[in-house]
């Protein structure tokens, strides 16, 4: 049985790993160290025996507890490239600083979490044993917010400018965008389209990105009922402001998508 996580939920019960992670740990506990390490080293996510990063992290923490320094260093060397991989595939060309600076900062923040774990100051790595990639998204969000608070929300090239004098938005793209904005991202099956759309959303000014992002999660702009969560209430602004932001964002997104369609 893998050791239980220490971090507690707010009701006092400890967090638990998903069953597939638990069974991976059990399976790898049963084999010798050398075979375990060689299995960790498999680089491709597509490989059927690719060990989830949650599990690699578990054995890193355990190596530290057991005082297995050599093993710890080896697993560290396997884990860190995975951290970078998860960041490479998810950080678009960012407008704040250079993408490399942000990546370095996130990696450094992750190393701080490892350090605090080793010195028993914090057990936040528990979250990364539950869902590594999602916890990395949280860490990234937190670091990006700090960058923004220092650098401000700078848009060097206003996206709206791409749209002037451009051709009319094709009806297919417009329909796809509307389907997307109607609240169910799964409606768009084409991963290439999603990728372009999300990259474009990522480049929107922060206020517009928030509105589009919340719309995509199915949250209404406004509602008469007081207990309904709306974008206007979350962002604490007027419903007309939200609509304006949405309209500006849609113009910019359509322009980008149309440009993409021409290529």
């Amino acid at each position, binding site marked *: 049985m893998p050791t239980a996580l220490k971090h507690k939920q707010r009701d006092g019960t400890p967090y638990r790993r998903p069953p597939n992670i638990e069974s991976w740990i059990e399976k790898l506990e049963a084999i010798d160290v050398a075979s375990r390490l060689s299995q960790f080293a498999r680089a491709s996510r597509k490989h059927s025996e690719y060990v989830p990063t949650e599990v690699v992290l578990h054995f890193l923490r355990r190596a530290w507890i057991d005082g297995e320094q050599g093993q710890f260093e080896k697993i560290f060397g396997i884990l860190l490239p995975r951290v970078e991989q998860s960041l490479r595939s998810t950080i678009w060309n960012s407008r704040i600083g250079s993408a490399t600076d942000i990546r370095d900062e996130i990696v450094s923040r992750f190393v701080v979490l490892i350090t605090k774990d080793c010195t028993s100051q914090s057990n936040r790595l528990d979250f990364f044993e539950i869902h590594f990639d999602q916890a990395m998204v949280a860490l990234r969000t937190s670091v990006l917010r700090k960058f923004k608070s220092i650098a401000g929300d700078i848009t060097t090239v206003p996206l709206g400018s791409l749209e002037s004098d451009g051709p009319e938005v094709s009806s297919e793209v417009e329909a796809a965008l509307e389907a997307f904005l109607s609240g169910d991202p799964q409606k768009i099956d084409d991963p290439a389209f999603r990728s372009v759309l999300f990259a474009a959303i990522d480049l929107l000014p922060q206020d517009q990105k928030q509105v589009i*992002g919340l719309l995509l999660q199915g949250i209404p702009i406004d509602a008469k009922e007081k207990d309904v969560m709306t974008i206007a209430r979350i962002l604490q602004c007027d419903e007309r402001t939200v609509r304006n932001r949405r309209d500006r964002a849609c113009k910019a997104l359509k322009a980008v998508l149309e440009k993409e369609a021409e290529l």
Partner: protein
Amino acid sequence: MSAEYPRLDEEEVLLAFSVEPTHDSATLEHYLSQYPEHTQALVDCSIELMMNASRADEDVQVSSDQLVEQAWRQFQAAMGSAQSSVIANPFAQLTPTAFKSMAKRLDISNLFLIRVRERAIDAATIPRRLVQRLAAELGATADAVSAYLGSPPSIASGQSFRSNVKPAVAAQISFEQAVETSQLKPAQKEALRALRD
């Protein structure tokens, strides 16, 4: 409503949110109501998670040698300072006057005791009997003093008084070298050498 729960910082709230099994609007609403002070962060995180979920699980080629090396150095440096802050410095409470009178009682030069305190001497070469005497003077256990002397050398911050040598983190010297070069009188050198294990 949320007052019954301890306040969490932004990073922890986002981490907790990120590992929720689902990220629908109900989950977001729940977190927003519990942590209104982190509204902007939660909104940003919910958007990042949504966009992340639909990204393909691609293999990205990374050349990570430099990254791993840099991260490992950061880790080691952090652990080094964490360790030395965890291991209590038994000299920390001594005033300069107390420090000098301790040197006098041990019949060693101030410089020699400074080198002990600054961990400028390789702990493995320091005689056990000297460690025991230091411990008795410091009111600490011999093990605690050993642990301190064995942790990485550094310039002890917040402690200084005039000395003929410039303080610096230098390579450690052996006990023998320290005896030879610490402005000790011949009799003091003899006495120290007699303590060797």
